């Protein structure tokens, strides 16, 4: 079976635009699709601006930036995805949206087309069921920001075949990402194994074993982590972090290890979401943290 030449990315939010940028920077002609024309224009402008900034910083040559820009096409017509070899879906995390997209793509694309979904929380096995041949679909999970984070989790659904996994691994390496392969389990690897870093820190803090500041210092200086669990929640967004924990918890059908902490919910209720609200576990309004 042939490798991938032409790529399509569905959804032009932060993730979709980031993935499209990675693809075109690595020489792949890419079509970015969205139902919203305005959002699409915004995403394209963002990608172009980021490429220009890379030129200013001397990370890439002007020529490379121009070539990359020429490889990006945008469309609101799903039918123009007819000839792509790989579709990476990065639409909102709602099953009915993904279902409708894959139903249409099933009829539009060739039987050889490889399908991937960037979902971080939904079942790959369920999404694969939306196309006629579920062996051709796998998870392809990027980390935010996609142009910078080196990891991609390739997720094998119950029906995904080995050839699909191999081709996606090959593609991941071609776009200079580091692929790991995992089974279709809640939270895949990273979002699952990282849960205790936040959850247990919240528990320790709430039980008065140590303060927020102490826990962050200890994890950095005794453990060698680059950021403490509370600094990192402030950076990610406490609401985002809680949402991930909730999803993993419910996907494991209430496994005790993943139970969210009520204190994290209180922070969200108080509107203290982290850096983006200038206050979370730390304050960011007046002084530099």
């Amino acid at each position, binding site marked *: 079976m042939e490798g991938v030449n032409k790529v399509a990315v569905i959804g032009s939010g932060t993730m979709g635009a980031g993935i499209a940028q990675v693809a075109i920077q690595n020489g792949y002609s890419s079509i970015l699709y969205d139902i919203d024309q305005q959002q699409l224009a915004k995403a394209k402008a963002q990608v172009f601006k980021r490429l220009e900034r890379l030129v200013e910083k001397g990370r890439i040559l002007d020529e490379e930036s121009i070539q990359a820009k020429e490889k990006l096409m945008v469309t609101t017509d799903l039918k123009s995805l007819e000839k792509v070899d790989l579709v990476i879906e990065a639409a909102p995390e709602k099953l009915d949206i993904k279902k409708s997209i894959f139903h249409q793509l099933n009829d539009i694309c060739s039987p050889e087309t490889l399908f991937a979904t960037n979902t971080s929380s939904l079942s790959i096995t369920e999404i694969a069921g939306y196309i006629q041949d579920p062996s051709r679909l796998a998870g392809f999970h990027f*980390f935010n920001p996609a142009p910078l*984070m*080196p*990891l991609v*989790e390739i997720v094998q659904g119950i029906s995904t075949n080995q050839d699909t996994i191999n081709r996606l691994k090959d593609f991941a390496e071609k776009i200079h990402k*580091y692929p*790991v*392969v*995992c*089974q279709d*389990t809640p939270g*895949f*690897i*990273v979002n*699952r*194994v*990282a*849960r*205790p*870093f936040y*959850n*247990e*820190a919240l528990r*320790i803090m709430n*039980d*008065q*074993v*140590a303060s927020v500041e*102490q*826990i962050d*210092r*200890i*994890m950095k*200086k*005794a*453990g*060698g*982590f*680059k*950021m403490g*669990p509370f600094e990192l929640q402030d950076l990610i967004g406490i609401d985002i972090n809680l949402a991930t924990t909730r999803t993993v918890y419910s996907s494991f059908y209430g496994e*005790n*290890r993943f*139970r969210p902490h009520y204190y994290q919910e209180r922070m969200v209720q108080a509107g203290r979401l982290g850096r983006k609200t200038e206050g979370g576990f730390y304050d960011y309004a007046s002084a530099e943290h």
Partner: protein
Amino acid sequence: MIMPQLNISIIGRNQAAESIFTLLKHNYFESASLNNDSQLAHAELIIETENLERHEKINNLKRIDGLGSQGATILSSTLQWTATEVASWLTHPERLVGFGAFADVGQSQLIEIAPGLQTEPQHLQLAKDQLKLMGKEIEMVEDEAGLVYPRILSLIINEAIFALAEGTASAEDIDNAMKKGTNYPDGPLEWAEKVGIDNVYAVLNGLYRQLGEERYRPASLLRKLVYAGWTGRASGKGLYYYEQQRLNHSSNYQNV
């Protein structure tokens, strides 16, 4: 004020004890001794490091009680038991302070200590001063099994071991995912081999018993590794060795 280096005795047959002994020698604590009963009577600070076996820990404390000076301060590792519980095994419980001691304790920049309910301030102060002389930063936290860093890391490692045992991904992919997806300094499985898989088990076991919650239940594979003695770097065998064995086995069984 210049703090004098005191006479220190270490009691414990594990990597943590050796790691602290190396650290003391490196910092010119000339009189420091390791598992030397004849030195115990002269020690002003006694460091005790058993993390796994309760009867072993009790024996260590009884030996210190019998052979050491009754005025000496005792710094005892509290991965599996609280400082309050360990102190209760002594004739004079007010002289014991808990601390976190994974196998690599000597190399870490910061050490956590925790007083038990009975600990008196002069013993806490002495323990702090001597740790500072060894070049360590100190955080004082409340007395709970596993303190902060050993507790959080052990839970991360436990989750990674659950994922490995369930066949979610290979050991190498689990480690690399955490390093490249969230910037962890080490992958959780290789980290477990470094700090001692038996120590991770000790922390989880302690929390499971103290707090009585399902969330602290050690993965079955983790227990089995401890029984098999595949506890990481110290034994030369650990999670990666286990994975290799499992792969060999499955191909052998196919040939039967």
